[in-house]
């Protein structure tokens, strides 16, 4: 599904150039659950942003579903993104002005799904995430665990092929964290590819494979059993 080769990304300030990704190569197959780990500043988030097509690499190749996307413009990337990729953030990033239902509905609006179909699909996914009873609440009225479940519902409502999760349990207690990991595992078992950045060895154990980064390079890959 994903194949990146010799990917490079630099950050420049006026005087210093920092290498975030240094000739990084990796691949992820369809249906995999991959965890990316590494210390702060190792390039995990940069990698995730590039994989999510929120950012483009300076050098190297990124092939997504057999399409070279490394130098796509913003519009093309946005188009590819909204149909194929769902995001889950550490800080949930729900829109405060919208209700649970409306937050989850948003990706469907942007992909032009009809209103009746939207209601059906949002209700379906809210049901699955067991937050149907909260559908008319606003994010501030929910607990952290509930907010993250809404965020996951929003990420999967469009039935993306790939979910990118950036420390999805980082703001949660362990019990809520475990629930979220169970949810992601379920999604993976139903066929969604998941790439997750995490600091937690515990969470990483839910994955099939751990890629460890240091200074923008892969230093180790662990295959989980």
């Amino acid at each position, binding site marked *: 599904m994903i194949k990146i080769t010799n990917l490079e990304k630099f950050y420049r300030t006026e005087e210093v150039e920092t290498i975030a990704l240094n000739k990084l190569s990796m691949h992820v197959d369809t249906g995999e659950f991959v965890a990316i780990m590494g210390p702060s500043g190792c390039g995990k*988030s940069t990698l995730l*942003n590039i994989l*999510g097509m*929120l*950012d483009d690499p300076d050098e190297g190749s990124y092939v997504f579903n057999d399409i070279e996307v490394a130098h796509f413009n913003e*519009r093309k990337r*946005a*188009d590819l*993104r*909204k*149909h194929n990729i769902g*995001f889950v*953030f550490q800080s949930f*990033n*729900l*829109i*405060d*002005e*919208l209700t649970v239902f*409306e937050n989850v509905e*948003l*990706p469907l*609006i*942007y*992909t032009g799904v009809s209103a009746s179909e939207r209601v059906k699909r949002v209700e379906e996914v809210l049901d699955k995430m067991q937050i149907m009873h909260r559908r008319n609440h606003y994010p501030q009225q929910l607990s952290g665990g509930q907010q993250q479940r809404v965020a996951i519902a*929003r990420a999967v409502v469009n039935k993306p092929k790939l979910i990118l999760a950036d420390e999805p349990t980082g703001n949660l207690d362990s019990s809520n964290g475990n629930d979220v990991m169970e949810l992601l595992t379920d999604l993976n078992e139903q066929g969604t590819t998941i790439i997750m950045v995490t600091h937690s060895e515990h969470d990483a154990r839910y994955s099939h494979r751990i890629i460890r980064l240091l200074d923008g390079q892969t230093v180790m890959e662990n295959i989980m059993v």
Partner: protein
Amino acid sequence: MIKNYIKTAFRSLYKNKGFTTINILGLALGLLSCLSIVLYVVDELSFDKYNVNHDRIFRVNEDLKLGDNKVDYAVAMPPLAKTMKAEYPYVLEATRIKTAGTTHVKKGDLIVVENHIAFADASIFSVFTLPMISGDPKTALKDPNTVVLTETTARKYFNTTEAVGKTIVFNDNQNFKVTGVIKDIPKQSHFNFDFFVSLESFPDSRSNEWLRSDYNTYVLLKDKDYAKQLEASFPAFLQKFSGAQMQSELHMSYDQFEKSGSYFRMNLTPLDDIHLKSARTGELGPNSTVQYVYIFSAIAIFILLIACVNFMNLSTARSANRAREVGVRKVLGSSRQHLIFQFLAESVMVTLFATVIALFSAIALLPLFNQLAGKEIVLTVQMFTWIIPVLFAIVLIVGALAGSYPAFFLSAFQPIAVLKGKLSTGFKSSFLRNFLVVFQFGVSILLIIGTLVIYNQLNFIQTKNLGYNRSQVLVVQNAYELGNQASIFKQELTELPGVKATTMTGFLPTSGWKNTRIFFKDASLNQKQSMFPQTWDVDADWIPTLDMKMAQGRNFDKNIATDSSAVIINEAAAKFLGFNDKAIDKELYQSLGGKTELANTKLYHVVGVVKDFHFNSLREKIEPVVLKLGQNNGALSIRVSATNLPALMSQIKAKWSSLSPSLQINYSFMDQDFDTIYKSEQRVGEIFVVFTTLAIVIACLGLFGLAAYAAEQRTKEIGIRKVLGADVTSIVSMLSKDFVKLVVIALVISAPLAWYLMNKWLQDFAYRIQIQWWVVAAAGAGAILIAVITNSFQSIKAALANPVNSLKDQ
């Protein structure tokens, strides 16, 4: 999708109630001011447009220059109208109007004093659109002793508009037949009369004199393009018709007259220009000036711009708070266009709310505005046919304008940058926002300086030594109604304790009575040395009663027989004639009309020079004045002592009633009369103050909002500074410094501009103030003070906050 935009917009506005209130309030205030001014300007521009043929109607004027005397008249020669109609095929109709002055009209046993009476040719109804309710407009004013009334006047005298055939009595014994009732003349007319009396009733109207001008004359052309051709033909026309009279009376041909440096010309004023652009001698009523239309339009645009700027500033300042939302939406697949539309929808919604509020408050405040502007604007259903579309356009334009910058600015955010919280520098870095704040305060300072200068000038006028003392002078305006008994009344009043002096004449510095005569400097009657002074009949008590001072010579003396041929001139006249300080005993020959020869003159000798006194508006220089001893019972002026005025007043009223039981005394105080001369300036001053205040309030609202966001943006910085030992004062001054800097820049830019513009305005006054440095200093200090106070609300709040909370936030 649209539904989603509106929903999000509404919720976002609701959530940020403070911000939304400031925005809507600011915009509503701006739109309200704008709307009120638009109504004012539209009203000013609509004058005389009620005439179906308004673009084809022209007034014929006469310009006269005789030696150094120059007068531009709004009136023309008695035979002009009929001659023009006969002479030019494209002059379809010509008509004359002549004001009749104050007239007594009988209503049962009552006598009503009417001031809005005019003589008019029968053709008036073919030129102007004055729809007749009853009567035949073609014949209504054809015969002598006929009169046409307005609807209101007909009701007043006959309780019905079916007044045709009835009789109305003028001045006790003149019977006039009502031959028509017209609809009331619209307020937006340069003339306003209640009665039109047929000019046929007035023998002078058949005069064939071409060397005098006293009829307001209007022509209706076949096409407005004939105006140029018509004006070009005037010199030949004048030569043809007035040449003979000029030869016999002035002993010179038309060409010689022009060669001697004098002239006698005619020109046209389009009807549409009369209200705003004409200020000639002999206008049918006070006109306005186009200058104020420009000034107020500029103010309206400025205020609206300030309000828009607020919107833009506040929205972009808030951008950091909305950045996350933008980021999330982009991650979820929103395109830039979607976001732009979303933000535009939001600003159009705010504008819509504001417009609705502005419209309703404009309607509610219209009576107040009318009072302020001295207007009688009425909102009609017909007006809404343009107001609503205009407002709709305003909603879209202002909404798009105010929303465009935030829309494009916010939608351009890079999602990862904002989701990572890298956008906190958003506030400080905006050059555009600083520019906009400078603009707002620049305009505010401009308006403050403008207001101060106008007020200083008005104050200067109020307190200027006018050459006479207008306080404690009671003027009985209808003294002439006592007829022969007027002098008895004067005598009786003089004996009252508390009355210091009395003078009987209608010629007063505040009365606006004018009377121009021609004087020659010596027996050669050289018209190059002629003078066109105001020539006033006064009595020997005039100068003492008005508390005027003599520069040379003496006042009139009843006991000196030769004073019947004595004159007192003012300093301006002495200077004009070259007498300077040796004016006493100099001779003056007054022309009595007819041929210019000694037999047609009267010889006067100068016995005194009175110090210059103002009798025109201070816009104009003091003209030469010649005072003669004469009988004029136009008004009785009484200098009274300030003590126990009410008692004195009732004594004066009692004296009046004993002489004339059926007539009401009509009096005023001279200082009030004086104030009415400056009413238009006073009005403009007041309007200026109101709108300047509004502009400043709107600008402050914006600054208040900006300060709130500035403080919010820097919460963490403030927290760290406090932890490191900064005190509240240093933090407040740190936060205020940025804004004060901007206001100072605004001052530097707008002060010279204001100086220039206000000096231009002052040029209109012959007597004016110099703009003082402190005016600019005060405006600047005021603006800075306002900025600091507004700002400190927010910065003190921020500075007092517990740093632990702001630091924990991250």
